[in-house]
């Protein structure tokens, strides 16, 4: 049994923003990086299934697209317990369809029983890579999954798909399948220090990107969003702010 988990190292923007000279992206000096929240749930779910059903030789394989620096996020997954990691060496930012094209051949070669992606990345919020990848791999798929009951011998899984308002759609899906994993499906484990140290020693396989075709979009211009009317800023220290909040509340609840 093999589960491939596609993960992303996301960029986190701090308090200040400056743009690159061509104004097509944020200046990388203003970014911090982390494993995408959704992908930590996807990794946990794969590890959980391996532990639950698994036998000798079962594998959880992590795949990511990016330059060498994204290996930090991949090592987080290895420290959680993933067996192997493969990085597609591509350092330019890419749209979700392009990312799907870049990982598809790597996932295909692994011929996994399940493929997991996070529902979305916190920096991109496209919620598209998983579904696009399923198409390229010709796999059945379900997006926004909050529960999985998989019967490998029957070649079927029963999953809960979470819709707007928290309504759950109980769906039966043929496997192999690709599922996009929603937060809350489990409680991702913390890696202990020893596991983190060991993960640092692990070899991450690097593959060259395949032909990816034309991008699905090009960023023409990136800019700070218009503030609209903007929030009226409550000035002063915490005591002043608290007083103003109470005034506003009292007035609005009248």
């Amino acid at each position, binding site marked *: 049994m093999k589960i491939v988990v596609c993960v992303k190292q996301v*960029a986190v923007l701090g308090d200040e923003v400056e743009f690159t000279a061509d104004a097509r992206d944020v200046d990388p000096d203003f970014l911090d990086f982390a494993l995408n929240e959704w992908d930590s749930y996807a990794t946990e779910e794969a590890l959980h299934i391996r532990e639950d059903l698994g036998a000798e030789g079962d594998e959880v394989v992590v795949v990511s697209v990016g330059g060498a620096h994204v290996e930090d996020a991949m090592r987080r997954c290895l420290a959680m317990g993933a067996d192997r990691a493969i990085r597609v060496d591509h350092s330019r930012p890419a749209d979700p369809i392009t990312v799907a094209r870049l990982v598809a051949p790597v996932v295909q070669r692994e011929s996994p029983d399940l493929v997991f992606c996070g529902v979305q990345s916190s920096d991109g919020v496209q*919620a*598209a890579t998983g579904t696009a990848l399923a198409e390229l791999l010709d796999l059945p798929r379900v997006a926004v999954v909050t529960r999985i009951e998989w019967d490998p011998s029957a070649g079927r899984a029963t999953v809960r798909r979470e819709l*707007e308002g928290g309504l759950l*759609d*109980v769906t039966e899906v*043929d496997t192999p399948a690709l599922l996009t994993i929603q937060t809350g499906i489990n409680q991702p484990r913390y890696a202990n220090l020893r596991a983190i140290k060991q993960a640092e020693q692990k070899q991450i396989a690097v593959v060259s990107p395949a032909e990816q075709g034309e991008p699905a979009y090009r960023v023409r211009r990136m800019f700070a969003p218009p503030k609209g009317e*903007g929030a009226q800023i409550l000035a002063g220290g915490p005591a002043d*702010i608290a007083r103003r909040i109470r005034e506003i509340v009292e007035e609005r609840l009248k």
Partner: protein
Amino acid sequence: MIVAEHLRGELRELTRELVTAAQQLSGPVTVAVIARDPTVFDVSFQGVDEIVNVPLGQEEFENDVYQTALEALIADRQPHAVLLGFTVNSMGYGPAVAAKLALGFASDVHGLALEGETVVATRSFYGGKVDAELEFPAERPVLLLVRPTAFAPAADGGNAPATEFAVELPPARARHLEFEEAAMGDVDITTADFLLSVGRGIGDKEAIPRFEQLADKLGAVLSVSRPLVDAGWMPNARQVGQSGKTVKPKVYLALGISGAVQHLAGMKTSDTIIAVNTDPEAAIFNVAHFGAVADLFDVAAELEKLS
């Protein structure tokens, strides 16, 4: 071309918004209705030029079915742009259609314009902190997932002709079995006039009782963002947002909530929004009426002192 959004026999308001979004682009607006009996949904809104009914053997959404239907519609009508809602259903098939047909693609689009022949879409990046204008490959249709509530709903009173469009459907590989309702909670946050809403900024579970007490003291009901429910700190009946409750209290006081699009979807029409966040660039300030760049614990301590 837009695809009508419906769930359990009800047309979603978003369908009207998609019509308005489509009007930002050139050309006739076609509404495709994919359902067991598409004629039960009245999509004859102002601005609609044509309705295409795609009858199915089933009522509920399945992504293989929608994908096949949309691909057949695209092949037949050759639209310049296909607009779907940025919804859980669309996430399950829209990107697949775009990948298969090599279309221009973006999701969570909240602005649209036509410059000459070129579609320009605006969407956010980096957790909603920056916006970007996107352009798409020349000579290819675009498929865009449009953010709910970003466009005004189209009004009733159109008179577009309807035609039927038959599609041969494959057996679905992911099949709808049944719906399960979200669990009911002890309180109904949707009826509160004043919500004190806390997010991941409160740090850990031990902080919850403090904010429960503060809510009591202020005469507010406590609500939360999703991560607190995911972590099991609060029941999901308290969750505000796209996958939780949509609320519209007189006052929404948000402490330590960043303002992710799915959170905003559930509260941005509140009468008065007050946000406290240490990050001056937090997206919540874009919808808040009053904002304080401050540590929520300091402000909470001062609110506790007042009475």
